[in-house]
């Protein structure tokens, strides 16, 4: 197992619980986080026992992200986010407190977003003469629609947790003290379901975004039929018909 300096991670049953440490004071912090997320993403992607990932981090740790190397310096903010977007298992973001700029863009690359009460979210880069550069201009409209995305990106407006929930920017809002409990509880629940179904659904949804609906339906059908070859499909349906809990093996 690789050793990490800016992240910690542990296995809890079928879940990997990852935390990005918030001490961003050291020089080159963002670049180290990016490198370590790259290593971790590769490690998790090859680990058949990991079915769900929780990615916890203080949302404001990344505020210095752009300034870290200057607007044109290293690292590219996208390098923090890309490894997370490549994870084949569902990734739950547990965002501690406010997340502006890169901190929010990282959450946008996750599949489910948990926020704490009273937190604020925004992409303020335009007000600094920059643009979101870690996928914000692409992922935000796909997640919450063009109208609300343009408002947030062009005006730099922030939304609080309650509004973020209402517009679908985050999926759950919880008290700060219960964030990890809720995140790991959800991850454990998901971990009991079919890992193949979850990763194929991710492929169908993200892949289908860039396709016509007819192409997307063919992709869905291919993945649907590929699951006919798995033990887990037999187990899932048999368990349902026998009114018992399924035991998925991931094959």
């Amino acid at each position, binding site marked *: 197992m690789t050793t990490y300096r800016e992240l910690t991670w542990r296995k809890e049953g079928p879940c990997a619980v990852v935390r990005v440490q918030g001490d961003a004071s050291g020089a080159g912090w963002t670049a180290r986080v990016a490198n370590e997320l790259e290593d971790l993403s590769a490690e998790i992607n090859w680990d058949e026992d990991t079915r769900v990932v929780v990615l916890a981090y203080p949302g404001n740790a990344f505020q210095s992200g752009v300034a870290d190397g200057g607007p044109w310096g290293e690292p590219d903010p996208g390098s923090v986010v890309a490894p997370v977007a490549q994870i084949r298992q569902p990734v739950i973001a547990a965002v501690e407190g406010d997340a502006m700029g890169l901190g929010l863009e990282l959450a946008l690359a996750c599949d489910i977003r948990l926020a704490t009460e009273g937190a604020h979210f925004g992409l303020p880069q335009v007000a600094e003469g920059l643009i979101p550069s870690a996928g914000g201009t692409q992922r935000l409209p796909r997640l919450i629609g063009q109208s609300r995305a343009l408002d947030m990106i062009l005006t730099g407006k922030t939304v609080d947790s309650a509004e973020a929930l209402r517009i679908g920017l985050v999926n759950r809002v919880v008290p700060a003290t219960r964030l990890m409990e809720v995140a790991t509880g959800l991850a454990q629940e998901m971990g009991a379901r079919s890992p193949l179904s979850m990763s194929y659904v991710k492929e169908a949804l993200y892949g289908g975004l860039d396709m016509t609906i007819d192409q997307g339906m063919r992709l*869905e059908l291919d993945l649907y039929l590929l699951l006919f070859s798995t033990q887990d499909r037999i187990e899932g349906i048999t368990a349902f018909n026998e009114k018992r809990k399924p035991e998925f093996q991931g094959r």
Partner: protein
Amino acid sequence: MDGFETIIYERVGNIAYVTLNRPRVLNVYSVQMRDDLYEVLNGVKVDEEIRAVILKGAGEKAFCAGADLSEFLTAPSVVKARQIRLLRDLWGLLRSMPQPLIAALHGYVFGSGMEIALFCDIRIAADDVIFGLPEMGLGIIPGAGGTQTLPRVIGLSRSLDMLLTNRRMGAHEALDCGLVSRLVSGDRLLETAEEVARQIASYSAAAVRNAKQAVLQGVDMTLQQGMELERRFSVNTRVSGDQAATDNG
């Protein structure tokens, strides 16, 4: 068209009603229901007198609680399953219906029931409605277009949540996020669907069909292509309108 085992087909004036009719098993979608729907919708599709179609579920408890899982695992082979799916493509047929489809939804709307609703153009729900996609717990994924239609209707963020976490959605949230466009009390569900159907039926058939196609086809195009498509449909609608005026005069 009548005598179907799993559905009821009715026609009142220029409005067609298709009722999923297996109330004792929450109207779950079966092979027989696929064949019944395929036959009925193929007939409706080419019937130019029908101006709107209402889809609803029989009984108190559900529009449709998903697929009949007792039939799963019985396909002779995956090759055969694929062949049947492509030759008897009910989902492609639903998507290609020229008339507006209106879903009147109540109770459980799960799995393929929810996917059928997502192929409809207007979704009206009773306040007891509950949506859910249970596939992750069954070792399958949606197979009736749900992974493609849902994000286009409610956005990617909520779609991932519903699918990956098995999160169910009630009436008010469904209205807030646009999964349904109207919410009424249960006793007014059918009446509301009929009002909508009658309103649509009162308009020029060409205008309604062309507007539907412009929106549905345009979603998959660049804006520029969509604008050109809209222009062609617009000209076509005007010509049809003039033709109708001449015919009537």
